[in-house]
């Protein structure tokens, strides 16, 4: 699905792509027959690029080693593949500095990417996570999917960004999914794959938003890179944030500090070093870094806030309950004039104000926008203020919101009932603006304390999470098809490679079956994708049931499956394929208005001398599948012996 969406983007011809030397390198590295000499030959045509690669190699290496002076040395030291990736990414930075997406800040984008890259390199070096230059390259391109969407859909992406700028509670990835059926993180991963970057680069980008933890044996490179990217993202954002943004980012920064195992002074030094390298690289690549963060801000935040700093709210990861901050407040009144006056007063006091015209709307908005405080009139048609409060207290999401009820003079004798219903405070109307705002500030204190508790709970949870569980989740997600829960193509290919090696060594027979659901497209077209999905799941379930122990089935494409039968000859695989075919034909699937069976066509192939690799085995079973389709479907065909497959001479 993602691949399809990405191919559509790609066909637009507007995705960012390397140019000049970058393009040459990409073409060269895709041929597989190149070496360091070829690479040095291509790259050295560009002196600026050459010096950047030497600079990067020097910055990453351990102190005490002789300085790297030539491209050849750099390539030997950090690896030719790594140097080619660097060259590719630098050429992307140089070639995509502007574009037509109005809301997309191209300068900021690259400046942030650079800060993230520099941070990743230093984090990798500091924490011993993977190779610093690879972390740099991957992080530098880790958000390039945003550029991709901005390039292909300049106006639509511009609208989307404008909506996010207006309402910071919107989540950009879900908007992207909604609008483009693919999000920028997925585009990043697909672009990296397309450019021939290492697989663990784009795996790490895909898993960046999930919780992972270190592991000794499995996917170590990927996990280390995920951890590096995550920390680097925080540091990068921090480099570009204004003062208020830095305050908001501080709890995340404090976690980075702890994850790196540094004390506050050491972390301050580390941040300074990241900022300095970032500015150095910015000058090197002519990217603006000067008008972003100032070094002294990092020093001040990293060192903890001065107690007399009027704007500080969070001190070293703790929220100070008495400091003013801007709150998100939902104002609720059915009467528009009062609502407007109330909203006006709150806005002037510096708060972000949402408005709802009745209790039901307010309930929906509270759950959606998660305001800190709800200020509601009591008497309203449909759901009144107190009913709203009671409803919120019943919901998980509304339990912690601070609820301030506005009462009329005549209602004041009923406030006891209101407190029993869960309100935190009340103000009688008509109210004096100063008194209302003082009550809001009192509420702020409680909001801050509640958030402090939440923050501590989250930290606690993160610390106690079992690493093994997380690693398993990561493995499963990486190797499982989310719809059918069968192993996916990636896992299947890994297994097949392993079995192939086994066959080469032991000559124990190896067969595979390629299966394809007949006329699946018409199921989708006539009954919709939901039914199509149900058919895929039901078919998968049947296959799992009838497979022998030791055989494995995977979903390798839309309606295409592959069964690996180790230690099995053609005869055995044929019996297995026939058993699956019959079981699926006999299984009636019911979903929505659909009630029918489906059939499958299968092709069987067996490893034989003269097959070059596992792909030749798949090719043979694909050919057999093609025969089965030609013979009227719902049948099994065996790949003809290899010598009969040769095309007849014309």
């Amino acid at each position: 699905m993602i691949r399809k969406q990405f191919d559509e983007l790609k066909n637009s011809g507007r995705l960012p792509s390397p140019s000049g030397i970058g393009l040459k390198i990409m073409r060269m590295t895709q041929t597989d027959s190149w070496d360091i000499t070829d690479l040095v030959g291509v790259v050295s045509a560009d002196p600026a690029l050459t010096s950047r690669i030497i600079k990067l190699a020097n910055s990453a290496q351990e102190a005490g080693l002789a300085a790297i002076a030539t491209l050849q040395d750099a390539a030997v030291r950090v690896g030719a593949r790594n140097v080619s990736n660097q060259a590719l990414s630098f050429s992307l930075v140089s070639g995509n500095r502007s574009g037509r997406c109005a809301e997309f800040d191209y300068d900021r984008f690259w400046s942030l990417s650079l800060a993230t890259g520099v941070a990743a390199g230093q984090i990798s070096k500091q924490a011993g996570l993977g190779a610093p230059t690879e972390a740099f390259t991957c992080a530098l391109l880790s958000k390039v999917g945003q550029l991709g969407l901005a390039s292909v859909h300049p106006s639509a992406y511009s609208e989307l960004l404008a909506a996010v700028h207006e309402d910071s509670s919107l989540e950009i990835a879900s908007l992207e999914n909604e609008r483009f059926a693919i999000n920028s993180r997925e585009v990043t991963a697909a672009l990296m794959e397309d450019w021939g970057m290492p697989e663990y680069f784009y795996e790490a980008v895909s898993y960046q938003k999930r919780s992972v933890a270190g592991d000794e044996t499995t996917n170590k490179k990927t996990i280390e890179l995920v951890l590096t990217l995550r920390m680097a993202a925080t540091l990068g954002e921090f480099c570009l944030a204004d003062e208020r943004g830095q305050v908001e980012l501080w709890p995340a920064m404090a976690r980075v500090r702890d994850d790196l195992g540094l004390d506050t002074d050491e972390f301050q030094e580390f941040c300074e070093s990241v900022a300095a390298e970032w500015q150095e690289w910015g000058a090197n690549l002519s990217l603006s870094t000067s008008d972003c963060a100032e070094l002294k801000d990092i020093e001040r935040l990293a060192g903890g806030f001065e107690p007399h700093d009027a704007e500080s709210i969070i001190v070293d990861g703790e929220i100070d309950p008495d400091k003013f901050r801007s709150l998100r407040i939902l104002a609720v009144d059915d009467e528009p004039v009062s609502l407007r006056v109330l909203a006006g007063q709150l806005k002037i006091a510096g708060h972000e104000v949402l408005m709802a015209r009745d209790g039901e709307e307010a309930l929906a908005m509270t759950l959606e926008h998660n305001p800190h405080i709800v200020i509601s009139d009591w008497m309203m048609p449909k759901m009144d203020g107190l009913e709203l409060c009671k409803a919120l207290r019943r919901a998980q999401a509304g339990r912690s919101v601070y609820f301030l009820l506005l009462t009329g003079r005549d209602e004041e004798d009923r406030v006891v009932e209101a407190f029993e219903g869960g309100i935190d405070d009340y103000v009688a109307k008509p109210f004096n603006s100063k008194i209302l705002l003082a009550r809001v500030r009192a509420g702020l204190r409680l909001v801050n304390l509640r958030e402090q508790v939440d923050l501590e709970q989250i930290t606690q949870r993160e610390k106690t999470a079992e690493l093994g569980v997380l690693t398993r989740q990561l493995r499963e997600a990486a190797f499982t098809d989310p719809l059918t829960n069968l192993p996916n193509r990636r896992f299947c290919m890994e297994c097949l490679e392993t079995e192939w090696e086994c066959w080469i060594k032991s000559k124990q027979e190896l067969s595979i079956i390629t299966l394809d659901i007949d006329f699946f497209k018409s199921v989708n077209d006539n009954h919709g994708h939901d039914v199509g999905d149900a058919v895929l799941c039901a078919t998968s379930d049947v296959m799992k049931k009838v497979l022998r122990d030791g055989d494995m089935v995977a979903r390798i494409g839309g309606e295409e499956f592959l069964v690996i039968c180790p230690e099995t000859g053609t005869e055995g695989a044929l019996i297995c394929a026939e058993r699956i075919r019959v079981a699926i034909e006999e299984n009636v699937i019911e979903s929505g208005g659909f009630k029918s069976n489906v059939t499958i066509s299968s092709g069987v192939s067996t490893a034989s001398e003269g097959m070059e690799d596992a792909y030749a085995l798949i090719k043979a079973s694909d050919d057999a599948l093609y025969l089965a389709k030609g013979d009227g479907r719902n049948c099994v065909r065996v790949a003809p012996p290899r010598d009969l497959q040769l095309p007849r001479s014309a």
Partner: protein
Amino acid sequence: MSDTNDNILDMEVIGALRALEEDGAPGLYDEIVELFLMDTPTRLQDLATASAEGDMKGVEAAAHSLKGSCGNLGATTLVDLFRRIEQLSREELVDEIPNLVGQIGPEFDRVQAALKEAK
């Protein structure tokens, strides 16, 4: 003329709204007055209809919300009228309500004129 105006609108309330404008919400006063002038006739109509139909719950709800909006603009006489209507409807003293409802129209016209003058 200015004497009667003082009774119609509480200038302290108007002054407080004006002060909000100076505190950083330009145009707020005009916006609120416009909102009031647009919204109130519909609500008055709701009140009249409910009163004519003897729907005391409807009268109470309409009077309550009109009391609130008039309070925001310092229309004290109207606020008092609506408060009495609200009380009467709660106590279901139906007979006196039409008389009070009748007084609203002329008073609203005076408020409207005073608000425009106060601009």
